[in-house]
């Protein structure tokens, strides 16, 4: 039996030439000490393969029609066998891919692997990062629920800010002058054909560069890259101590990739994909669109940039960042590779992680958004039976003050916390502030009647440290309304 299989394989391999084609690539020598730090690239590829397979599977049931996609999403999530699991795999696979791209970039950056002769490995990788983010964004749109529909609008508006051609770009994204029948099929074509096609091409190129230049050797402090001698030294070292990629190097990629895929499957089983709740009906104005986690930090950027710089930050900053990333290896292709001799490289990675991390946290809380769910303040917070103060507390809710201001942990975070405002502002200050507004606050002068201002001020004057109940912690960190 075994002999038959072997002879059939030998015949096929002779006629197809598979060993001749792939053998040298599989067996090529890699540096012996390229160990666990080198698994992130292959893990990204593994996540990409998961995405291709689960994506093709989802396409069996997904109808890319603006009218019907939402229903097919519901069908896949609720009725199709393994449907919810498949969506979960695709969602957590995407998340894993974004994370692995990030880890891969950080590792190759810290190891100076982008230097001579691997500059183009880095630059093609930067393009692949861009494609990955585009896939993440367009993938969220294919969920075609309320958030997806509004995200297309936000994307079109953002594109609209591009000088001169903004209006055209916006129409290109919408597939016309409004959201509608043409919108989803465009994003389907982009998400399923165009960007994956580009990714296959660039992943192929990226992998070819691994074979052409070899994976980078582990950097040693005090051993800089000299273009004149690097290739010769690398080759000599490989011949002396290198090991064949298959299986001496590859097993770690398989172990790490398997762990990642198990984690993806586990998350898909336990937590499942994001729910499909509201339909993509733009006439439902009670919407609170938020991007998926991998773009939540950018959502925070859009809220936090000063208005005057908006055009610059929205349009110029991504372009500049992209250019810097693409050209980085050409600007610094020689010299020390080890991170201990390139302290700024550590600073760049740490600052990037801190920046995106803190934007993430603030993006998930979105303190700049009013809290539309604010309920009227309960008597336990008002703590007065004075009719004027009670009226003031009522108005504080009815006139939407509470949507933006916190009182003892209740309300919104758009404006300052007013739990102890009477300690900061006297009656005159309060009136001036309410009537004239301030930075980020509307002027209520022509909205409120004089007696309403009086009631609000009377209520505000009861908000001081002295009158806070001494027992029990003050709830200053609750995001939602208090339970009744």
């Amino acid at each position, binding site marked *: 039996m075994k002999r038959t299989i072997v002879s059939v394989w030998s015949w096929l391999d002779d006629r197809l030439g598979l060993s001749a084609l792939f053998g040298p690539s599989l067996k090529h020598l890699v540096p012996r000490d390229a160990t666990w730090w080198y698994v992130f690239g292959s893990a990204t590829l593994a996540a990409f393969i998961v995405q291709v397979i689960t994506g093709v599977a989802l396409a069996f049931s997904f109808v890319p029609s603006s009218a019907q996609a939402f229903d097919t999403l519901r069908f896949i999530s609720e009725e199709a066998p393994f449907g919810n699991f498949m969506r979960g795999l695709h969602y957590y696979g995407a998340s894993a891919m974004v994370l692995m791209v990030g880890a891969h970039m950080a590792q190759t950056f810290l190891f100076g692997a982008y230097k001579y002769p691997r500059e183009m490995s880095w630059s093609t990788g930067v393009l692949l990062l861009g494609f990955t983010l585009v896939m993440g964004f367009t993938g969220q749109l294919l969920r075609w629920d309320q958030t997806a529909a509004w995200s297309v609008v936000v994307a079109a*508006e953002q594109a*609209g800010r591009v000088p001169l051609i*903004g209006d055209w770009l916006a129409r290109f994204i919408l597939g016309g002058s*409004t959201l509608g029948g043409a*919108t989803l099929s465009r994003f389907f074509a982009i998400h399923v054909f165009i960007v994956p096609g580009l990714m296959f091409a660039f992943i192929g190129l990226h992998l070819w560069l691994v074979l052409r230049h070899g994976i980078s050797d582990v950097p040693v402090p005090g051993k800089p890259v000299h273009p004149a001698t690097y290739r010769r030294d690398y080759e000599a070292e490989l011949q002396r101590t290198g090991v064949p990629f298959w299986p001496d190097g590859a097993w770690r990629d398989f172990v790490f990739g398997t762990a990642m895929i198990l984690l993806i499957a586990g998350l898909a089983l336990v937590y499942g994909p994001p729910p499909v709740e509201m339909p993509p009906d733009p006439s439902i104005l009670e919407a609170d669109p938020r991007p998926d986690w991998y773009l939540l930090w950018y959502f925070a950027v859009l809220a936090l940039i000063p208005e005057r710089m908006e055009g610059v930050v929205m349009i110029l900053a991504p372009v500049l960042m992209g250019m810097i990333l693409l050209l980085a290896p050409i600007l610094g292709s020689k010299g020390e590779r080890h991170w201990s001799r390139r302290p700024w490289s550590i600073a760049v990675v740490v600052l990037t992680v801190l920046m995106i991390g803190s934007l993430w946290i603030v993006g998930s809380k979105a303190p700049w*958004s009013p809290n*539309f769910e604010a309920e009227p303040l309960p008597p336990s917070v008002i703590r007065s039976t004075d009719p004027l103060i009670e009226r003031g507390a009522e108005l504080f809710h009815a006139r939407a003050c509470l949507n933006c201001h916190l009182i003892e942990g209740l309300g919104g975070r758009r404006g300052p916390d007013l739990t102890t405002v009477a300690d900061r502002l006297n009656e005159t200050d309060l009136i001036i502030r309410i009537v004239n507004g301030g930075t980020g606050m*509307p002027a209520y002068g022509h909205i409120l009647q004089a007696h309403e201002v009086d009631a609000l001020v009377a209520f505000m004057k009861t908000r001081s440290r002295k009158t806070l109940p001494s027992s029990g912690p003050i709830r200053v960190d609750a995001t939602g309304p208090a339970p009744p």
Partner: protein
Amino acid sequence: MKEDTPTPDSGPAPGGLPTRETVALLSRRRFLSRLSIGLGVACAGIIGVPVVGFVVAPIFRKVAGAWRTVGQLDDWTIGETVSVVFEDPSPLPWAGVTARAAAWMRRDGEESFTAFSAHCTHLGCPVRWMPGAKLFLCPCHGGVYYADGSVAAGPPPLPLFRYDTRVVQGEVQIKVTALPITTTL
């Protein structure tokens, strides 16, 4: 072709100047490569130009505004701001619910109305009217507008966009147009 025919890279034949045949062959090869590349470009153009035209066509599809009835005159109380739902100017048959849109509309006088786009001028999110505060609040990045649509706070660069309105035989209508896009230049 013989194996020892000169290639364009091999320079003059050994032993002196290129022969007349070599020159002819090289010029023939130059012609053939230019021909092949030219044909490739032509093919790319034949297929590519219509493909690009097809894909970017929506950019140039100008939509004329369309009057849509959003209610009867009697449905409105003067001074009240309510949301109205209507259909896009030229919906595709397969648009489904995405052909729907909404605006905030207020009856100012007997037959005069103001209709505000529900899209925040910052990045297009749907603003909500807060009747008690007489403000429009945006849920995305904190934009706030006064009752007249002017910016009260937050990042919006422009007041809320307005639609034309009219009353025809007791029917309240608004002229729905393209989704308003805030541009820089």
